[in-house]
């Protein structure tokens, strides 16, 4: 499904972060993931902050002059179906977490490039991308 305007890019980001937030919060409560509880809780909190950043960015930058279509950007490469994190093994939870943050980082990087005509929006998306990059590196270091 195409992401062809400003609103759809930020709506997808909002949904992506909410999905991540729910996954990490649930994983943090999963006894099998006890050793990663602190990290997953942090990731969930970060996604919650990202949602606020995305919503603020949308509110503050959506003006008539920038309601122009965006081409060649679709959501499918960045979608990730998550199994129920509450019943996963720690290994599966980590593997899923890696896929989630990897796709999120790539999404924000690509979206920032697509929306570069709006520097404030691009800046916000890059900032969130960096947060996901940090999460990816943390997961890779485990």
């Amino acid at each position: 499904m195409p992401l062809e305007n400003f609103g759809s890019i930020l709506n997808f980001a909002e949904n992506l972060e909410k999905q991540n937030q729910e996954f990490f919060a649930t994983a943090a409560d999963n006894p099998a993931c006890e050793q990663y509880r602190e990290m997953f809780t942090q990731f969930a909190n970060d996604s919650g902050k990202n949602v606020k950043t995305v919503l603020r960015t949308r509110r503050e930058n959506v003006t008539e002059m920038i309601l122009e279509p965006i081409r060649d950007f679709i959501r499918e490469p960045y979608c990730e179906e998550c199994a129920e994190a509450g019943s996963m093994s720690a290994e599966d939870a980590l593997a899923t977490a890696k896929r989630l943050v990897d796709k999120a980082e790539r999404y924000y990087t690509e979206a920032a490039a697509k929306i570069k005509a709006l520097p404030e929006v691009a800046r916000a998306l890059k900032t969130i991308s960096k947060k996901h990059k940090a999460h990816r590196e943390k997961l890779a270091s485990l």
Partner: protein
Amino acid sequence: MSLPLMKNYINGEWVESNSTSFGDIWNPATAEKIAQVAYGTKEDVDQAVKAAKDAYWDWRTTPPLTRARYLFRLKDAFEENFEEIAAVLTTEQGKCIDEARGEVRRMIENVEHATGVTTLMCGYTLEDIATDIDCYGHRQPLGVFAAIVPYNFPGMVAWWFLPYALVTGNTFIVKPSEQVPMTQTKIFEVIDEVGFPEGVVNMVHGSRDVVNGLLDHPDIEGISFVGATPTAKYIYQRCGETGKRVQALGGAKNIVAVMPDADLDAGMPSLITSFYGCSGQRCLSGSVLVPVGDVADELIEKFTAAAKIMKVGSGLDEATGMGPVVSAAHKERVLGYIEKGIEEGADLVMDGRNFTVDEYPNGFFVGPTLFDNVKPDMTICKEEIFGPVVSVVRAKDLDEVIELINTRGFGNAACIYTNSGAVAREFKYRVLPSMVGINIGIAAPMSFFPFGGAGNSMFGDTKAHGQEIFNFYTDTKVVIQRWF
């Protein structure tokens, strides 16, 4: 099931009109009735004016910074209710949700700009205008003002005026469009939460009786209006008769010229938005597209290709590029213009008649429409259509473009796409319209610049928002002083 009834907001309370006449509010995408509004009466106006007048003195003696703090609180409240306001707006007006969000943003920007009152309302002084005599000018508020606003921007337009009137110490009455009163009602729910002093800000729903009640009321100092040109002219004349200040913004016939050196690919998204954004129901929408010289065929080919892939549907669907027009009656009006274009001999390249959206078979949709080979004297090149209908007039050079623009009677906006600074400068220098876009399809001034046209697009001398609006809402009292 009974439909919700929009109430008036007078003296800090929600009150029902005593009217026995009601109108229906529609969702233009689904063609369903979603609410009702009472067509208010002169008595409703009298009640609101009395409340505003009674509140005036306490409000005008409130320090400007304190008045501004109400607006700061209002801004925060609008941010919190941002999505809800935008959703109501799209539901009753039909525009795309991002367009509605953009409108709410512009509304908030006016609140933000008005908070600069402690600088923008300052007067000026000069010592020694004669021996031992000093002179100073204060800007003082005047009393009760009102705004009568249109259906195409049910949220924003009232806010081109309201925050400035309030922050300068006046009190205010809004009359929303009777076609789309839900958005302003939602906004007034937010105002109610913020808790302005009673009577400072009021809203009366209705139609002609409310308009005339406001125009004729002796206790109203000034009127701001945005709408069609015949109504703007009527309001200007009637306010003149009753001695009111008035700013009456009317319709438009905006021309967008494309020069042979223009970057078509870079400009195409904003060209499409100019003509089809808000389904053409903007006073800044492009209406006449003028390719100059040999760019015409390539421009039309690229323009129609881009228009054809634009999704038309419900404004609440985020993938939608163009929503319905506001009402069944307006749809018929737009279709009438398309018929007129055919009748007068223009070539119909894209036909938006009989356009349907599968999920919303009854919606008030008009598809993107384009006429080629339109002549300057055709009806579709002279009258405001206010729909997604593009009239292409081919011109041989810039002089022909400027002649076309300056003979439309309207003078709202004009745009040009070119890579030549010299051509752009000549264009902006010679055209009559007051809002000019250069490689911009919608020349919409932001809150800190004035909004308004020339010619038959505006009656009055002070435009909406910008710095000038502080003049409209204040009287400069000059004091000449000598002490013995």
